[in-house]
């Protein structure tokens, strides 16, 4: 098992390298510069600025410098917010996104699996049909339609929750963003759970457990749940990726000071180093989480050899 984990982590290194390289050269060859504004600066000043950020050196040297810095965990200075480094900006934004993302992920997983299990155990009854058709709506409705609809209903009409803002992450401000972000994944987890649960409940070992006279809740909790979770675990990777990507939209709608908003603003401001830093960070999180899911899958699924 330890060897498998080590191998999985080693495999992530070339991926990381490709990501850093691609984003670095994409930035360098992009037309325009973060310092070109309406007011043209004197050439001496431009030269000074370029020298300060090391942009006057050959591209290859810049690349090597950047790579060594990134490996040491230093994402460089921000081009736009002159007093901040990328690390500081990310450090202030990441907790916001992490908090919402974690809530959304856990909610989607727990609630989705719960609802999906209920639908599976009541297969082809009105309960099943109503859960599944609601889930279909959840799958189809994009977050940028759902979130404004939630604001309209709960903030403007009913006035239960604030329409946006963060206020240091108080619970009231988090309800709508978390709901808007997680609905799609609640629905998807529910659909996946229902399918695999039905399959599991019809398998031979469940019949054996029933004929032994075990109680129904015991069978579901003790025997059926773990094998039925396999497809759910393998969907956890894509769900995580989707929630991070979705944070771009949700944070824009609700005006939250998170990573997604930081990224969109940085892209609009042509703040190359910040954009690059966030892309690399997110790529790192993707790779890390996918490795975790793979290891988890190897643990849950006895068929996987490592």
């Amino acid at each position, binding site marked *: 098992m330890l060897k498998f984990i080590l191998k999985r982590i080693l495999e992530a290194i070339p991926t990381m390298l490709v990501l850093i390289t691609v984003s670095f050269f994409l930035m360098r060859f992009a037309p325009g510069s973060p310092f070109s504004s309406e007011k043209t600066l004197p050439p001496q000043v431009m030269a000074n600025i370029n020298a300060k950020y090391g942009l006057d050196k050959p591209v290859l040297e810049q690349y090597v410098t950047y790579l060594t810095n990134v490996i040491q965990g230093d994402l460089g200075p921000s081009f736009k917010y002159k007093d901040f480094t990328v690390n500081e900006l990310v450090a202030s934004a990441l907790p916001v996104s992490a908090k919402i993302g974690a809530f959304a992920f856990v909610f989607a997983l727990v609630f989705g699996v719960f609802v999906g299990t209920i639908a599976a155990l009541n297969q082809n009854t009105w309960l099943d049909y109503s859960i599944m058709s609601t889930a279909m709506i959840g799958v189809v409705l*994009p977050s940028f*339609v759902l*979130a*404004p*609809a939630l604001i309209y209903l709960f903030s403007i009409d009913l006035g239960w929750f604030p329409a946006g803002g963060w206020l240091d992450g108080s619970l009231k401000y988090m309800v709508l963003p978390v709901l808007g972000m997680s609905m799609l994944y609640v629905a998807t987890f529910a659909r996946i759970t229902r399918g695999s649960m039905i399959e599991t409940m019809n398998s031979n070992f469940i019949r054996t457990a029933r004929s032994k006279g075990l109680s129904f809740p015991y069978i579901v909790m003790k025997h059926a749940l773990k094998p039925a979770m396999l497809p759910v675990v393998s969907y956890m990777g894509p769900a995580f990726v989707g929630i991070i990507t979705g944070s771009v*939209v949700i944070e824009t709608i609700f005006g939250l000071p998170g990573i997604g908003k930081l*990224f969109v603003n940085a892209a*609009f401001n042509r703040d190359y180093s910040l954009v690059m830093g*966030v892309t690399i960070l997110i*790529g790192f999180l993707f790779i890390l989480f996918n490795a975790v899911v793979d290891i988890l899958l190897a643990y849950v699924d006895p068929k996987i050899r490592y």
Partner: protein
Amino acid sequence: MLSKTAKVEALNNFSTNLEIEGRSLWQDARIRFMRNKAAMVSLFILFLITLSVIFVPMFSQYAFDDTDWYAMHAPPSVDHWFGTDSLGRDLFVRTFIGGRISMMVGVMGAFVAVLIGTLYGAASGFIGGKTDRVMMRILEILYAIPFMFLVIVLVTFFGRDIILIFVAIGAIAWLDMARIVRGQTLSLRGKEFIEAAHVCGVSKWGIITRHIVPNVLGIVAVYSTLLIPSMILTESFLSFLGLGVQEPMTSWGALLQEGAQTMELAIWQLGFPALFMVVTLFCFNYVGDGLRDALDPKDR
């Protein structure tokens, strides 16, 4: 009792009267698809939406970028069926023009993705061995890259060109397609008719395009139908962030973004585009599910 010849004759008569028609896989699938009511209704609605996004803007009395300063934020009325937006532009026309762009991006994006994915997957699965391993390794690396973020970088830095958006979106989505097709190809590769083609001296490329690709077409058809709505969603995602199509042109995502900003005073600006988009996505999903059921050989 009948004699033997009489029996044979009777049997012959019987069999000529029986009209047994051979049915191909595709005929079979079509019959099953036609029986699926949800899918047929969805297909019909999609047909109507496609027709209207093409023709409504042509025959409407308003142009999509005509501003009417006397009717800003006008609610739905006889003049403006869906009301007007913040610049007094007719939302009825804009919804359909936006739909035209969204559907176009969806179909084109899916087409690019299917083309790259099918060829890549078929090549990887068919050639096998070391090439297959390398190609799949590349795919795995690409999987781990946060593409949505790269696309955002791409469109902000290299200009908001609709063609670029097609290509960028299509280039993300081919990864899944390639995996599915590779799996199918691997199982096809061992079949006798492929060996026969080999023996006849058909080139590798010829076998891929003439024998492998047509045989994975069923599963490709299913996934492309499911890919179109996800492409529409991706385009809307970009447009919603203000990175997609640019004014005065519009798309469903761009309309939704405008609508979300003004929903307190003009809910119809959000409602109508959202309704059309959600119905379209719904229908594509149902048609895709229907196709999958119709083409799934396990379902015989």
